[in-house]
């Protein structure tokens, strides 16, 4: 809790809160961007995952991976707008979000997705896809990564929507 308070104290020193409070367009604008980022991230990463799992054969997996940089841009857009939401929360301040269980679960799920992606590249799984032809089957290790990736990003969306309705999560957990 002290660590969260320290983070919150730091975020409040940034000019983001004042900027959000004095410009009414910032929040809806960032929210809209956050939805664009969400769609493009799930679309680009999702089609690679689906192809690894055997959907849309006829395209070599590594060709579809050329969409991944677009997903990375979308992720950066959402990291920046997400940071603005936390640091610039005009109602409850950063602490309201930092102590929100749904947001905590969302960040944990993003972290798992990140580690999963790291394993995909570092453990040689991505390299193993070079020999998979346009109609070929991906190795089992790649399929595991794809399932984890899809599950993570879907849950990132779910936890993201739960942030505003955190009470229903706490109620379900008996907290």
């Amino acid at each position, binding site marked *: 809790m002290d660590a969260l308070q320290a983070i919150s104290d730091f975020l409040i020193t940034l000019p983001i809160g004042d900027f959000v409070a004095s410009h009414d367009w910032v*929040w809806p604008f960032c929210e809209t961007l956050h*939805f664009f980022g969400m*769609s*493009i991230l799930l*679309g680009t990463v*999702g089609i690679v995952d689906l192809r690894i799992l055997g959907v849309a054969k*006829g*395209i070599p997996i590594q060709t579809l991976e050329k969409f991944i940089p677009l997903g990375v841009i979308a992720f950066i857009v959402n990291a920046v707008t997400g940071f603005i939401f936390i640091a610039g929360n005009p109602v409850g301040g950063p602490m309201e979000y930092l102590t929100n269980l749904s947001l905590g679960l969302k960040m944990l799920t993003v972290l798992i997705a990140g580690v999963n992606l790291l394993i995909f590249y570092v453990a040689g799984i991505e390299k193993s896809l070079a020999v998979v032809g346009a109609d070929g089957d991906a190795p089992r290790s790649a399929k595991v990564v794809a399932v984890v990736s899809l599950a993570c990003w879907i849950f990132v969306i779910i936890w*993201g929507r739960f942030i505003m309705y955190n009470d*229903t999560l706490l109620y379900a957990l008996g907290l």
Partner: protein
Amino acid sequence: MMEAIENSAYAVWVRESPSIFAYTTILSLHAIGLAIIVGINYVVAFRLLGFVPEIKLPALRKLFPWMYLGFTINLFSGSSLLMANLHNDLGNWLFIVKLVLILFAMVNLELTRINVFDRPGAIGADGLPKNAKLFAWGALLTWGFAMVAGRLTAYPNFVEAWLGF
């Protein structure tokens, strides 16, 4: 009629139940469905605009059922959310604009499927059926503005302050 829908057992459950599976889960499903259909349609549009030209169109055609899955999820989740907030939603002009834009986006998607994928006509210099780029821009713009309108339905005061209505 509107009262009957809003006071139906299902609408009341969606709106008022503290259950995790009521409003919050349905709203989450709505975001997932949106990400599926818009995300995939954007990837298809980027390809038609010349991004990653190595991808052959017949393979991309296999992604259409996934877009229909996203649309179906949102037809059901959206109808549920609408039943729960019928007066509010129908009284919000941006909500109507959003529905019209979604209708345009779906018509555009079907025209893309027919004219670019299923019965492609004359192939242009870019190796794509005629009008492919037009349909791609149609997808980017209709879904883009539908998302803007959808997000702004949550900020009626902000919209009124800026536009005056």
